[in-house]
Every structure is written in C-alpha cells, then in structure tokens.
C-alpha cells in the first residue's frame, strides 16, 4: 500500500515538468526557510528577551532590597510600601512586589487582596543565594518571580510580567511568517518567470529532440544563451549534425547490408532447402536437438522410422519420444561423436535396434546436436544368421569328418561282411539239407546280416549308402508302417497322425525313410516311459529366400515337412547340439548305441533334406525333417519281387582287387550257371579281354581299384566291344566316380555287401536289357 503511494508520488514527481519542479522546489525551500526562521526567532527571541527581562528584574529587585533594608530596620513599612508602589507604577513589567521577613510574615506587598499563600513556596531562595528566578504561568500571563534577599531581614519578591515580550515575539513571528509568504509568492512568481525564461532554450531543446526523434535531423536548435543550456543546445546541434551524417552513412550501409542479406538469404534458403532435401533423402533418421534435448529438426526418414511426423516431433524431448525408459542410461552415454548401438522405440511402442551417432553442432550461444539413427534390425538379423550359419557350418564340417571316418571303417567291415555272408550262403547251398552244419551256417548268415544292417546304419550316417530312390508320398509310407509303429511304441503311447491329402511327392529311398521313422519313434517311446502322445504330422512348406540364411546349403522351394513330436522328457539344451553325433547316447550301456539319430541325420542329408530339433525339458521334443518335394508322379510296382531266374549261360569277367570278394563273385556266378572269368586288376582284365574278346558278355567291375579304376577299364573295353554290358560294384558310395558318373548315368551298380540273390537278379536284369 505504502509502496504504491511512494510510486505514485514518484510518478507524480517524474510526470511534472522541469518548470513546475523548479517552482515547486523554490516554493518549498522558501516556505521551509521562512518557517524555520520564524520558529527559530520565536524561540530565541523569547529566550533572549526573557533573560534580558530577568536581568532587568533582578536589578530592580536588588535595588529595592538595598533600599528596603533601612526602612525595615527602622520599621518604616509605610516608606517601603511607598517605594514599592512607586516602582510598580514606574516599571510597566513589574506586576507585583512583596517582602516577607525572616519569620515568613509579609512586610509589604502590592497585591489587591494579599500575597497568595502558595506564591512564596514556589520561588524559595537558597541559603546565602544571590537571587532566584522562576517562571510562573498565571491568569495574568507569564510572570517571572525574582527573589532577592534583604540582608538577613527577609526576602523581596518581584514579579516581572513577560506578557509584553511575549506579545512582541508573537508579533515578530507572525510578521516573519507573513513575510515568508510574501517572499514565497514573490519567489514563485520570480521562479516561474525565470524558469519560463531560462528554460526557454530547454523548450527548444525538447522540441529539437522531438524533431530528431521524429527523424528530422535537419532541425537545429536556436542558441541564445551562453549558459549550460546554451552549451547543451550547441552540443545537441552538433549531435544532430553528427547523427545526420552518420544516418546518411547508416542508410547507405543499411541498403548495402540489406542487399547482401537478401543475397545471403537467397543463398541460404537454397542451401537450407538443399540441406533439408539432403537430410530428407537420407535413409537414416536425422534429427537436431538443442542442449536440452528438444527436437528442432526431424527428417523424413525419422518420420518413417519412428512414426512421428515432423510436427509431432519438433519441440518434444527426444528421450521422451524414442528412448525406451529402461535404456535411458545408454542414451545418456550417446553424447560422444562415437556411434553407439541403442534400442529405440517407435510411436506404436515397438522397439528395434538402432545405431545412434551424435555430433555437436556449434551455433551461436550454445550448441545443438545432430543425431543420426540407423535401423540396424536387418544387420542384426544378418549378423545373427551369420553366426548361426557359421555354427551350422562348423557342425556340418564336424559331421562330415565324423561321417568320412565312419564311412571308411564301415567300408572295410562291409567287405569283410560281404565275404562272410556270401560264403555262408554258398555253403548253405552246397551243404546237404540234413547236414548238422546247416543250422550253424544259417546262424552265421543271420548274424552276418545283422552286422550288415549295423554297418548299413553307419553307412547311412556317412551318407555312403547307396540309395534306391523312388518317387513316393509320405502319406503312403506312414500308412504302410503305422501298424508297425504302433507295435513298437506300445499301448501307453498314443500315436496321432496329422496330415493333408495333397502332400507333395518326394523322391526318396522308402526303406531309409521308414528307418528314420522307426528310429524317431523308438527314441520318443524311450523318452516317454510313462506314456504320452506321439504326433506325426506331414505338411507342405514353402521355403523362401530366408531358408538359405537359416540353413546353409538349403535351396528355396517346396518341401514336405515331416514332424515327429513327443510329450517326453525333452533334451537339455546343451545336449541338443550333440545328439546327431554317432555314438552319442544318454542311455545305459547296451541299451543304446547312440547311432539312432546319427542314422536319421545321414539319411535326411542324403535325401537333400534338413533336420532340426525343438525340445523343451519335461514338455517334449519335436524333430522336424524337410524333404524337397518333386513334381514327378508316383512310380508303379516299385516293390516288384524279382522273379526266379533261369540258370545263366553268359560269360562274366569279374574284376575285383579283393581276392575274397572276387572268389565270392565267381562262386556265385558259377553256382548259377554262368561262365566266370576273373582278374585281380584292370591290366589283367585287359589281357583277358584281348584273349577272350567277344566271348565276354558282361563286366562285373569294382569301381575303386588302384592303378586304373573300374570306370576307366570299362571305357577302354567299351571302345573295342561297344555292346559289352557292365555292372559296377563298390563298398564306397561317396566315391566321386560312383556319384558323378555311374549313378548319374544310371549305370548298373551293386553295393557291397550284397546277397547272392541280389547279384543274380541284377545280373539277369542287365543281361536281359536291350536284347
């Protein structure tokens, strides 16, 4: 409230003109001075006159005292009375006189009635005192009572009235006040006049300032006086002059500058547009933030990346927009100009990995940051896939080397088994039916065949088995073996089959695929000791380009998916990578060989298919197998049994470096009526051919031989006898010649080990062809 009053007051002082201020000041000063003088005079004069009066009174009183002594001593009261009456009459300021004796009795007085009793008590003279004075305020005005001793006889009191001097002082004071007012009025008039006169140049100044302020720099102020205002006016004129010239310069400069600004603005505009266009065309999200993280620029790519339009993003905090709260720390770290990988969030809440690089952009009075955000989802995925791929690659490399090793071992075993089984069968045929050895030889045959199957599995894994491919449909195979599967899994395990009618055909070795299903079913059963569900599902799947990334060596296209799923114990993750390795088992010794899944793996690979496992502990395991679909139709009568053969008459040249196998071949041939020539190497074979020539109907050639191999031998002989027939044999399947030449050209091939029946039936087929 008081502050407001002060402001108002201040405002008032500020708002009034200089003239008024001067006049007001002078008025105030005069008034103040006058009043001060009046008060001062009043007080001082009163005091001075009082003291003068008092002195006068003391003198009168002393005189009286002296003169009163003798009359008192001589009891001449009349004389004293006359004396004091006289004095009172003569001295106009003497208001009363009275004398009291030492006993306090009044000797004489000038009062009408008598000396007031209280009066003597007011001004008591001290013992031995010269005089005493006291001011009294009576109904007759101010009276100064002066007491003087009359020797030791008494005290004389004289009352001196101050009325006169007080009136005088009063008059003086009022005269002064009146004079003050007169002087004030005069002063005000004079001040107004002087102010008006003296401030005239100031008016000119004001007007000049106004003019200049309005832009009239040509205006000059009249200079009439040589005082401060005159000097000021001159200065003002000089200033106006300077202003005028500098304004002219300024205008020139300004025009120049404006021109430049326009040019620069144009340049800038185009460069701005350019920059904007460049930024907008960038694939990366580009934004500019100020030091508080407020978005100032937001390019098109950012809009696309985050779903916020320019309008939505600009003015918001970048962190609030795209930084997920739990990653704020990482974002905070992204101040350096180093690129960092961060997780960003879109408007719709989805998150994706991004690479963020911030760089400072110095601007006047601070800095902005330019942020570049690149979506690295694809890159991340690719990196992930590359990692997968590498693992897969390593895995397949491992599998391959294991496969090669097992293949070599299996091959050697195979040759041995071929002899064992072959000779056993021969022996069985040669032995009389009732011979006691027959049973033993039969046992050798069956154990040999068991061993053959074992080797077969190993060969399957090493993908060195010779496949007997047929166009078939998985539905058919499942239907054929369902009963067997149900028997295998037992009553506790329910088998569910999920399939579609239009499952694509695949080209496979049905026996091998059956093997796959059996192995998987057995494992499932073992994983569900308490029983459960075994689900076999078949479906067509289309693999796009992605499959290439996910599975190395895969080709895009249509596949038939075979999934075998159980509700068993599941496979611990750390073990999942090893289960396809041969001899890996978690089962008791004797219970599992660890070959089941490795066989499956081999077979699937050999069929150009893929296998993976998905498993969760205590929930179950699913093996997914993909076979490439084929457009071919189903072959008919593929399982025709070979018809019993008539004894042969033709001549067969057996070329085999392994003597036991060669002996087995010749024995079987001779047993079945054929003429058998034999050579232990290609050179020998050529010599025999030279010797026998056209008599030879068919070459039974081992492919893998030192020096000249089976294929070269055949080629050489074929040149001389183009009609000659050939059957290749081998324990190896992964030999390039077998794959690239023999199987590719659909040349007759017998995989070792073989049964005599198989050999004879194949022989017959080849000899009978193209007859």
């Amino acid at each position: 409230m008081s502050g407001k009053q002060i402001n108002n007051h201040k405002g008032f002082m500020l708002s009034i003109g200089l003239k008024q201020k001067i006049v007001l000041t002078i008025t105030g000063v005069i008034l103040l001075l006058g009043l001060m003088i009046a008060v001062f005079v009043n007080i001082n004069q009163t005091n001075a006159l009082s003291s003068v009066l008092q002195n006068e009174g003391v003198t009168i009183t002393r005189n009286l005292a002296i003169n009163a002594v003798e009359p008192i001593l001589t009891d001449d009261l009349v004389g004293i009375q006359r004396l004091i009456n006289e004095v009172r009459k003569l001295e106009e300021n003497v208001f009363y006189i009275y004398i009291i004796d030492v006993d306090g009795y009044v000797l004489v007085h000038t009062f009408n009635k008598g000396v007031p009793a209280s009066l003597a008590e007011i001004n008591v003279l001290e013992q031995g005192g010269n005089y005493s004075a006291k001011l009294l305020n009576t109904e007759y005005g101010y009276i100064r009572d002066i007491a003087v001793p009359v020797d030791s006889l008494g005290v004389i009191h004289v009352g001196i009235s101050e009325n006169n001097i007080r009136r005088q002082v009063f008059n003086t004071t009022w005269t002064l006040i009146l004079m003050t007012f007169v002087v004030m009025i005069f002063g005000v008039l004079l001040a107004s006049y002087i102010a008006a006169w003296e401030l005239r140049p100031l008016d000119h100044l004001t007007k000049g300032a106004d003019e200049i302020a309005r832009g009239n720099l040509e205006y000059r102020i009249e200079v009439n006086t040589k005082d401060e205002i005159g000097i000021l006016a001159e200065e003002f004129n000089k200033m106006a002059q300077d202003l005028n010239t500098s304004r002219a310069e300024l205008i020139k400069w300004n025009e120049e500058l404006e021109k430049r600004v326009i040019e620069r603005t144009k340049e800038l505009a185009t460069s701005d547009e350019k920059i904007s266009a460049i930024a907008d065309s960038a694939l990366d999200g580009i934004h500019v933030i100020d030091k508080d993280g407020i978005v100032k620029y937001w390019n098109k790519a950012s809009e696309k990346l985050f779903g916020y339009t320019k309008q939505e993003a600009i003015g918001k905090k970048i962190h609030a927009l795209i930084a997920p709260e739990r990653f704020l720390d990482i974002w905070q770290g992204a101040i350096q100009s180093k690129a960092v990988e961060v997780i960003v969030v879109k408007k719709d809440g989805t998150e994706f990995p991004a690479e963020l690089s911030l760089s400072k952009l110095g601007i006047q009075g601070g800095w902005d940051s330019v942020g570049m955000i690149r979506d690295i989802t694809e890159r991340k995925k690719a990196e992930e896939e590359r990692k997968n791929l590498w693992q897969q690659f390593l895995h397949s490399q491992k599998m391959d080397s294991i496969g090669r090793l097992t293949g070599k071992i299996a091959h050697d075993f195979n040759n041995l088994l071929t002899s064992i089984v072959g000779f056993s069968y021969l022996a069985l045929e040669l032995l009389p039916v009732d011979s006691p050895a027959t049973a033993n030889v039969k046992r050798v045959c069956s154990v040999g065949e068991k061993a053959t199957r074992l080797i077969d599995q190993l060969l399957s894994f090493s993908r060195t088995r010779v496949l007997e491919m047929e166009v078939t449909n998985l539905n058919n195979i499942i239907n054929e073996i369902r009963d067997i599967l149900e028997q295998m899994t037992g009553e506790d395990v329910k088998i569910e089959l999920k399939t579609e009618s239009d499952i694509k055909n695949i080209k496979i070795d049905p026996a091998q695929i059956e093997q796959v299903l059996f192995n998987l079913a057995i494992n499932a059963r073992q994983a569900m000791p308490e029983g459960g569900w075994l689900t076999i599902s078949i479906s067509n799947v289309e693999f796009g380009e992605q499959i290439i990334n996910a599975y190395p060596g895969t080709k895009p296209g249509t596949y038939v998916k075979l999934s075998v799923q159980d509700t068993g114990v599941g496979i611990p993750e750390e073990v999942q990578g090893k289960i396809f390795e041969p001899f890996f088992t978690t089962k008791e010794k004797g219970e599992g060989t660890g070959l089941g899944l490795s066989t499956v793996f081999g077979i699937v690979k050999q069929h150009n298919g893929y296998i993976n496992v998905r498993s969760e502990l205590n929930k179950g395991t699913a093996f997914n197998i993909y076979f490439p679909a084929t457009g071919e139709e189903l072959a008919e009568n593929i399982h025709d049994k070979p018809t019993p053969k008539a004894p042969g008459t033709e001549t067969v040249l057996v070329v085999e470096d392994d003597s036991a196998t060669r002996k087995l071949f010749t024995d079987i041939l001779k047993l079945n009526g054929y003429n058998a020539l034999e050579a232990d190497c290609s050179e020998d074979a050529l010599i025999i051919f030279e010797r026998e020539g056209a008599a030879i109907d068919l070459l039974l050639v081992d492919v893998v031989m030192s020096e000249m191999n089976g294929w070269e031998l055949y080629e050489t002989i074929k040149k001389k006898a183009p009609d000659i027939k050939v059957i290749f044999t081998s324990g190896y399947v992964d030999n390039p010649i077998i794959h690239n030449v023999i199987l590719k050209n659909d040349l007759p091939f017998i995989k070792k080990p073989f049964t005599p029946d198989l050999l004879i039936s194949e022989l017959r087929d080849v000899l009978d062809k193209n007859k």
Partner: protein
Amino acid sequence: MTYKRIIAASLIIFSLLSGCKKEEAEVIILEVEETIPPVPPASDDELRIAVSAIISPKKTFIYYKEMLDYISKKMGMPVKLVQRDTYAEVNELVKQEKIHAAFVCTGAYIDGKDEFGMKLLVAPKAYGEPYYYSYIIVPADSDAGSFEDLRGMRFAFTDPMSNSGKLAPTYMLAKMGETPSTFFSKYIFTYSHDKSIEAVAQKLVDGAAVDSLIWDYLNATSPKFTSKTKIIFKSPPFGIPPVVVSKGLDPKTEADLKKLFLDMHLDPDCKKILDKLHIDSFIEIDDDAYDSSREMRSWVNERQTDK
C-alpha cells in the same frame, strides 16, 4: 526521494528548535483568598531596646544584635532591637514608653532629660574614659588645617539632636559669631556618623563633625573611609552617649537590666562582644557628666535660632 529527505531534515531541525524553547512555568493563580499573614503586633513580654542612629541602622543592627541577644538570654525574655532614622524619633518612643530601654546619643539624652525626664541607666566606658569628643574631619588630601579653613565650604552634620555631630560644631561657629548658614556655603544632615565619614571620604562634603567613638572605632575595625579623612579639630570631652530607660519601666526590670549591663565585662562571653564594640565596660554615670553639653547647647540656643 530527495524531496522526502529534505522534508524529513527540516522536520528534525524544527523539532530541535522547538526543543530548546521549553522553560518550565509554574502554574499559579494569583487572585486567591489564602494569603500570607502580615507581621503580628508586638507582644507585651518583650523587651524592646532602641539604638539611636549614632551609626547607620544597618551597621547598628550588625554591631548591637549580638549584645541584644546576650541581654535576651540573660533576662530570659525576647529582646527586640528597635531602630529609627533620627534621634528625635527614638526620644519620642522613649517618651511614649513604646520601648523599655535605648542607646541614645548624648544630645538626645540632654534633650530627653529636659523634655520628659529621660532616665539614665548606665554608660559605656571606652578607651579608658567615660567621655567622647567631636572630631572635625576633612578629606585626607584637604588643604584645610583648621575649622576656620572650612568657611564657604560644604559641611555635613549628623543629626540635629547630635551632640558631637551638630551641637559641638555649631557651638564653635557661634563662638566665632557665625551660624552654619553664614559660615558654610551648604550644609546637610546625614543622620548618622558613619554616613558623615563616608560623605567626607567621598568628598560629597568638604568637612564634617563626627563622634570620636565612631571614627576611632571605624578607623580601628574598617578604615576604608576613615583612612580617606583626617581630623583637623578635636573638641573638649563630652559625656559619653548613655543607655537610658523609660520612666514607666518597672523597677525590678530596670534593676536587673542595670546589673546586667554593669556585670557584662565580667562575663567572658560578653567581654568579647564588648571588645568588638570597643567598649571597656558599662558603668554607673551621673547626670552631671552631661553638663558640658547642656551648657554648650544653651549657649548656642541663646545666640542662634536656626537649626
């Protein structure tokens, strides 16, 4: 802001100025019924003793107060010192019996004795004798060497009734066939001897006749004025100014008073008072002692009528 400051400053000056004005004034009403009483009338059981203005009343008061206080103590009653300007007034008081006793001048005694039978009580003895003289004094630097030399000059008598201050010089003039009017250019009455000494010392007059007791006393105690005067003539001895009583004073008191005076010098306390007054003691005196003065007066009265 400046304006505010100026106003504040002036207010301060104002209050300072008015601050020094304050003088306490006692409020009092003068026209009241309750007044201070006047001096009550003299009581009967008071012994009033007058002292003639041999010296001025003020000095008399100073010198005799002690003695009167002593008398009051001895008599066992209050004693009031009564003074009058002239010998005649004191004589009148004695005559009217308004006072009981009085120290009177020799001249006054012989007048009072003749007029109404003024009664002698005692007389002081000073400087070893019950006499005194009249001195004619002139200023110390005066050329006058004898009374004769004062012809045509200004002269001061003391009291018309004074023996030493009026009668003695008038007698001398009469013998010369002169009167004061013919001899002096101007003469005045000072009504006391000390005043006459003062008048000579200050050369208000060219000569004066004074009581030898007074001049000697003053010359011994406070020679301020006496030192400025010189004695050019000493008269023959006169009876010393006595202490008298009124006729009506009861004999018992008179006897007591007489005894008191006569024994004063025996009392060591009072002896001091007497010493101050240059009085040896009080003695009984006969009326004869004043015959010389009486003769002188009758001689003068016969030849002169002016007073």
